[in-house]
């Protein structure tokens, strides 16, 4: 009777393993639980014992080859406790032929965004080696130099592209523009100038934004496209749209409503720093309920930001500037900030957006109003 041995998941969630060494050759006798082959996963080298007694009749993979979990690794003619009928290698036909490469090489390729199947391997049996990756990259560079100057999207940009395209196609976007009075905000910030830990505008604005979002819970929500349902979130997690060398990243500041401005300041700075140095974990990049794009330091007057799905709104905060303002019959000077608020018109209306920025202004005009409501 033929016993087929399929590569088990010898780790936890291992997808493949490399055959390191065959300990039994074709034709040799084998006893149950005798080690047959040594394989290497990302985590360890392990010996795989035989489930049956008999003789090894076939090795499906050579040493150095990569075996996907679930594929038939070898065959025994013999007896086992569990007998499996020959399924004519159905699984092998379904599974695509894998490119040969060591796990470490695969990791390097992934990190550099190199498609392994496009790399010509120079190792045994066409295996892709580390130097082949370098060679491929060099080739790409020279080709680009000579042939044209097009730039292939980096993995980060590809993700940005896909998400934004999905958002703009699915969500009916409307952008509301408002110029808000920030006299009180500027005063408040300047008053603490003697303080060593002087706050920047961002943590103060985040505190105000958190408060505003709690008062307008439909803005602090996700939209489930499939179910056509709005899911408001009781806690505020603000995504901070951050300009990095590799493109836009949105690290997330969680539970804004439970944190004071000093905490917001420290956390926002740490998050932006790790986004810029490419050290954000995936947990730090997910779970936002609303996104703020703080364009202030850079400039600009207005924008039409695209909503970060599955959220329903995004606000761009523009520079805080001194502008001429009419006060009664007089022309005076005041501090103003432009806000561009895009929202998903399926969930929210223009009037909601105006009410939102009105609340925002209520606090930027005089941040001490936060104190009145302090419990």
């Amino acid at each position, binding site marked *: 009777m033929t016993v087929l041995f399929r590569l088990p998941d010898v780790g936890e969630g291992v997808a493949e393993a490399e055959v390191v060494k065959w300990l039994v050759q074709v034709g040799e006798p084998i006893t149950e639980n005798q080690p047959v082959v040594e394989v290497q996963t990302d985590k360890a080298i392990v010996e795989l014992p035989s489930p049956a007694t008999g003789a090894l009749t076939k090795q499906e993979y050579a040493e150095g080859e990569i075996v996907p979990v679930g594929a038939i690794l070898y065959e025994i003619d013999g007896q086992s406790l*569990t007998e499996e009928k020959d399924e004519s290698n159905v699984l092998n036909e379904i599974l695509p032929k894998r490119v040969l490469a060591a796990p470490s090489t695969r990791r390097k390729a992934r990190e550099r965004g190199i498609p392994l199947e496009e790399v010509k391997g120079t190792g045994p049996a066409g295996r892709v080696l580390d130097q082949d990756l370098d060679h491929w990259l060099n080739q790409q560079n020279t080709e680009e130099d000579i042939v044209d100057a097009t730039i292939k999207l980096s993995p980060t940009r590809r993700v940005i592209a896909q998400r934004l395209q999905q958002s703009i196609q699915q969500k009916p976007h409307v952008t509301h523009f408002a110029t808000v009075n920030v006299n009180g905000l500027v005063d408040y910030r300047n008053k603490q100038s003697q303080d060593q830990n002087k706050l920047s505008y961002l943590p103060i604005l985040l505190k105000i934004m958190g408060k505003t979002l709690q008062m307008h819970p439909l803005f602090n929500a996700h939209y489930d496209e499939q179910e056509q349902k709005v899911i408001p979130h009781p806690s505020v997690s603000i995504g901070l749209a951050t300009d990095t060398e590799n493109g836009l990243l949105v690290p997330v500041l969680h539970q804004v409503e439970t944190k004071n401005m000093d905490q917001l300041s420290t956390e926002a700075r740490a998050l932006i720093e790790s986004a810029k140095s490419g050290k954000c974990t995936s947990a730090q990049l997910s779970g936002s309920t609303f996104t703020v794009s703080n364009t202030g330091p850079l400039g600009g007057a207005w924008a039409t930001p695209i909503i970060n799905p599955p959220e329903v709104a995004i606000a761009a905060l523009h520079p805080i500037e001194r502008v001429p303002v009419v006060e009664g019959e007089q022309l005076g000077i005041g501090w103003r900030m432009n806000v561009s608020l895009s929202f998903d018109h399926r969930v929210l209306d223009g009037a909601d957006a105006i009410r939102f920025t009105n609340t925002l202004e209520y606090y930027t005009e005089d941040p001490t109003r936060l104190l009145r409501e302090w419990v």
Partner: protein
Amino acid sequence: MLGQLEKDWIQYVSIEGQLTEAGAAIWEEMSDRDKKQFYQWMVYIRSFDRRAILLQRQGRIGTYAPLEGQEAAQVGSAYALTAQDFVFPSYREHGVALVQGMPLTQIFLYWMGRVEGCKAPTDVRVLPPAVPIATQIPHAVGAAWASKLKKEKEIAIAYFGDGATSEGDFHEACNFSGVFQVPVILFCQNNGYAISVPFSRQSASETVAEKAKAYNFPGYRVDGNDVLAVYDVTKRAIERARRGEGPTLIEAVTYRKGSHTTADDARRYRPQAEVDEWIKERDPIARYRKLLVLDGLLDEREDEDWRKECDEKIDQAIREAESLTPLPPEHVFTHLFAQLSKQEKAQQAELREER
């Protein structure tokens, strides 16, 4: 190198198989049957453990947590329990479960990811293994408290590792059981490593046992590879609990000879010299075997027959476990929620269609 381990610990059988003075007194009072049973259980459990690893490597069970090296800590403590006592194990206590009467077939089923492996027969009071760290300790305290309120004689025992002593659950359980004087045994198998974190990075205390002082109940540190010492210390703690004198923390100092689980590679974080010493010098079965030989209690033929019997029992249990009809993939939803959400129902249907 391992000298500091021996700080203030209770040991009755030296690694050469010699009884200490206190050990000799206890040995004297024990029946030959009990003495042999210790050995037989340990041999049986080790055979099972080794087979389980083979089965995992053959893809016949899922990720498995090996216990080889900790047999004495498990057999010694479990042997001191009665069948009515409640056991709250973590994921490495298959030895305890076996001694308490959990059928081997069900233990295999557990590691095959089958719910049948979690449901002990009605007369076996072993709870399903707690995989999250330390969550079972307050449960044991609750069971013990119930026993006290109902004026029953049963005690509860929680099994956990050194890593669990850093969890809030452990401290809450200690605090509660100290205040309410519940009949619970907090049994820590300190195998030196919480996966790869050595005990020196786990706690600034030198021992686990001394933590009991803060909660004002006794803590004992025992050589966990000495089955006689573990048995006696646990037995005395249980007697105290039954007399209404409250909880006891026991730290059994031991070592897992293999990796944390079949998905781990312990060679990456443990010094080879340390591993060698534990395997070659301090093995719990080898030591106890020496004692039995010295005492004329080990018959080679009998030993061989027993090992064969163990293998047969294990073969039989595997056959039984593997003869169950496999469950379809959509079964993963069955025990997760009482009521599936719309999305989960859709995912379940999708899995069913793919099949």
